[in-house]
């Protein structure tokens, strides 16, 4: 039960230090500072206290104390998230799971891994490799991001068209409720009786509980993987050839598109041999048995040719495959070199709307006088426009944010959504009222209440409260025509 008597910061620290090693209870400004933001550093807030418990029972005690005093709790993994989902609450505790870094078990027979939440995504595949297995979802931050954060955001990656998102690859989790009670969702089996709470937890952004253990599925490493790179004179042709591949019955392991800005930035950075004069570039990876890859590569090359590719290159060796991917994988830092700052967006659209969305984005880019580079998980319609700006110019970030918001609204207007894999956090909370009606948001709030009646788990993120969403609706940024007519074709 919650009590109304507020604890002082010192009293709270003292309570925590009663069961957590004193150096793992952080309260001084200097040491708190690195926790003020996650990967989206434009949104900052200093927390009251950061705790780094080392056992599940310590986490339970932290939750019990915070629950009984109605203190906000923000769980945090590696802090690589891109929606300010792990931004602290000024009155609250950051619950860092950074000490939970153990791979508890790799079971080659059942092809599963049991993990603590702080295990890095890439570390799972590295540990499974000796058994010829790997973990499917591979977000770009996989070298640093943790599996706990992946569950919270339902992370994807370049391979998710074929191998699924986090939600498709998690068998079970141990979760602590806001009261600190431990429950297990899912099992070793592929489904469980009753309401599928496991589905609800994936992508819930730390609003419903705290994950303390995760069991994931592992996949056999494909015998072979090859990538075909194709350059195109225009985006429409590139978009059409993506549709052509899907229509031919091939599900590529990865299918990525970049526009001319991204191509030339990536090429300057990675020297991968990308055709810098191309207006669009596709990378299509196929994997499987050697025979299957050979058969599919030939089909893909033929298709790219028939859709008017101006250049085609197919990896002949593993080194060449890695090189072709290097450009794509370094696209974000590469864009960072041509601009003081960049802001990465994350909308999803039906693929058929790509050419329309890109031309609208170009129009918005001219209106806001801000450049935009596009990197696109073309296979599953997930856009990552990178808006280039300079945070040192007064007002430019605000303009960037508004431009970003317009892009997300455009995605919704053509039948897509405001976030494919980065999450809502604080960043996109305003656009939730574009994608959902008030009644739908109320239903989300009711679900939140079912887990967390006091609303202390990661408050202010993910889903706007009704009061907030009314405010957001009333704040209309200056109206510009986003050509709703185009949307009607969706």
């Amino acid at each position, binding site marked *: 039960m919650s009590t109304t008597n507020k604890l002082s910061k010192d009293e709270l620290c003292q309570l925590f230090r009663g069961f957590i090693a004193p150096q793992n209870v952080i309260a001084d400004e200097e040491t708190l500072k690195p926790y003020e933001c996650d990967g989206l550093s434009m949104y900052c807030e200093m927390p009251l206290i950061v705790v780094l418990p080392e056992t599940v029972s310590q986490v339970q005690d932290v939750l019990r104390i915070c629950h009984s005093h109605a203190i906000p709790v923000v769980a945090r993994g590696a802090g690589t998230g891109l929606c300010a989902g792990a931004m602290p609450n000024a009155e609250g505790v950051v619950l860092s799971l950074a000490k939970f870094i153990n791979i508890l078990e790799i079971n080659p*027979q*059942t*092809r599963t891994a049991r993990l603590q939440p702080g295990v890095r995504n890439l570390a799972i595949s590295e540990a499974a490799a000796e*058994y*010829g*297995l790997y973990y499917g979802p591979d977000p770009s931050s996989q070298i640093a991001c943790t599996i706990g954060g992946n569950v919270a*955001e*339902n992370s994807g990656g370049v391979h*998710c068209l074929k191998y699924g998102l986090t939600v*498709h690859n998690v068998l079970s989790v141990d979760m602590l*409720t806001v009261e600190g*009670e431990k*429950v297990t969702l899912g*099992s*070793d*089996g*592929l*489904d*469980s*009786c*009753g*309401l599928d*709470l496991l*589905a*609800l937890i994936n*992508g*819930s952004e730390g609003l*419903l509980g705290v994950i303390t253990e995760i069991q994931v599925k592992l996949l*056999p*490493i494909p*015998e072979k993987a090859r990538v075909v790179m194709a350059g195109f004179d225009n985006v429409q042709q590139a978009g059409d050839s993506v549709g052509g591949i*899907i229509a031919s*019955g091939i*599900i590529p392991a990865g299918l990525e598109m970049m526009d001319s800005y991204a191509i030339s930035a990536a090429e300057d950075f990675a020297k991968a041999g990308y055709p810098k004069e191309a207006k669009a570039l596709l990378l299509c990876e196929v994997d*499987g*048995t050697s*025979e*299957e890859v050979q058969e599919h590569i030939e089909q893909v090359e033929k298709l790219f040719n028939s859709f008017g590719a101006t250049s085609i290159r197919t990896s002949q060796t593993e080194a060449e495959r890695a090189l072709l991917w290097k450009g794509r994988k370094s696209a974000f830092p590469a864009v960072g070199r041509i601009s003081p700052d960049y802001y990465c967006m994350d909308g*999803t*659209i*039906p693929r058929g709307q790509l050419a329309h969305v890109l031309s609208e984005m170009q129009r918005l880019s001219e209106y806001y006088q801000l450049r935009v580079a596009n990197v696109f998980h073309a*296979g*599953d319609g*997930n856009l990552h426009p990178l808006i280039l700006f300079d945070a040192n110019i007064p007002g430019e970030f605000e303009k960037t944010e508004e431009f970003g918001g317009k892009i997300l609204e455009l995605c919704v207007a053509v*039948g*897509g*959504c405001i*976030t*494919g894999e980065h999450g*809502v956090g604080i960043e996109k909370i305003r656009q*939730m009222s574009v994608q*959902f009606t008030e009644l*739908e*948001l109320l*239903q*989300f709030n*009711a*679900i939140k209440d079912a*887990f967390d009646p006091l609303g202390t788990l990661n408050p202010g993120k*993910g889903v706007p409260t009704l009061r907030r969403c009314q405010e957001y609706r009333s704040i209309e940024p200056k109206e510009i025509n986003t050509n709703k007519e185009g949307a009607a074709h969706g």
Partner: protein
Amino acid sequence: MDDISTELQQQVLAARNDRQALNIIGGGSKSFMGRKAIGERLDVSGHSGIVNYQPVELVLTARAGTPLTEIEAALAENNQMLAFEPPRFSGMATIGGTLACNQSGPGRPWAGSVRDHVLGVRLINGLGEHLKFGGQVMKNVAGYDVSRLQAGAMGSLGVITEISLKVLPKPAASRTVVWDMGARDAIGFMNQLAARPKPLSAACWLQGRLYVRLSGALSAVEATVKEWKTAELAQNKADEFWLQLGQQELAFFDKDSSKDNAGMPLWRFSVNSAANIPSLDEHSIIDWGGSQRWFRGEQDKLHMESLAVSAGGQVSLYSGGDRSAEVMHSTPEALQVIQKRIKASFDPDGIFNPGRLYNWM
């Protein structure tokens, strides 16, 4: 082929007003599942028809009452399929019921379940509000995943009116190989095969024989068949086997009281793929590469639950037996509390399929 969502909404509002329990029915093909249905019939079968299908987007949207046969016929014209191979139950099954009961066939461990393929839903909640969640795109992490939450909820959270699904191309080729062996060996062997990078798409053991299906590019399937050097099942026999298994039409599933197993309770285990359940395995169908097992017989439910727990999973009384007692695996108290609260968040008056999933919900 009609949109009757407004009528459905009015029926829900009237039921709420009268505090009248509703029994949501599509094709009625799965009325044998769950606990005994109570309440006034709410017929969703009239809310039918494919709303949108873009083969190139790999997405299909249909009203909940649309029969699976209609959806599969439309997909087949474009050489696509529902990769989760749901049972059609003599053509009566609808897409809404398939999602509500989380029904998937033999390909499930490799291709995913209906829960995995659902992208978005529209549903009428207990306040009579017609709401939309998820979307028609492959990736969408805005808001809680209410769409997947419907899988297996058996209509307890609302009247699903529309579903968007990911669909997939049909594999270019499919072949089936068999090995004759006992259950214990088969469980080990299925797991070994699944760890190899080969185009497996189904693995099932029954009555001394392990059936393994390979699907994908012709060259890959043929090379694997050759490499594994075992008997291959003739194409028509193979097709018939997987169809009868997936449709739950093998003699094992027969509910006909004239047969030996005479309507005996049918138990479904969802367990660790490599676990052995020595007392049952030899008499079971071991599907999903070991993860799903069917057993028929009069048994004590708590005993079956303890077997399932030691095999890392759960059991439910799929059909037959006492349908007024609990038929799902027992739920710990803490999870009961959360599930009841979620139920109340959608259906505060408890009008949708009360007691169908559990006595307490």
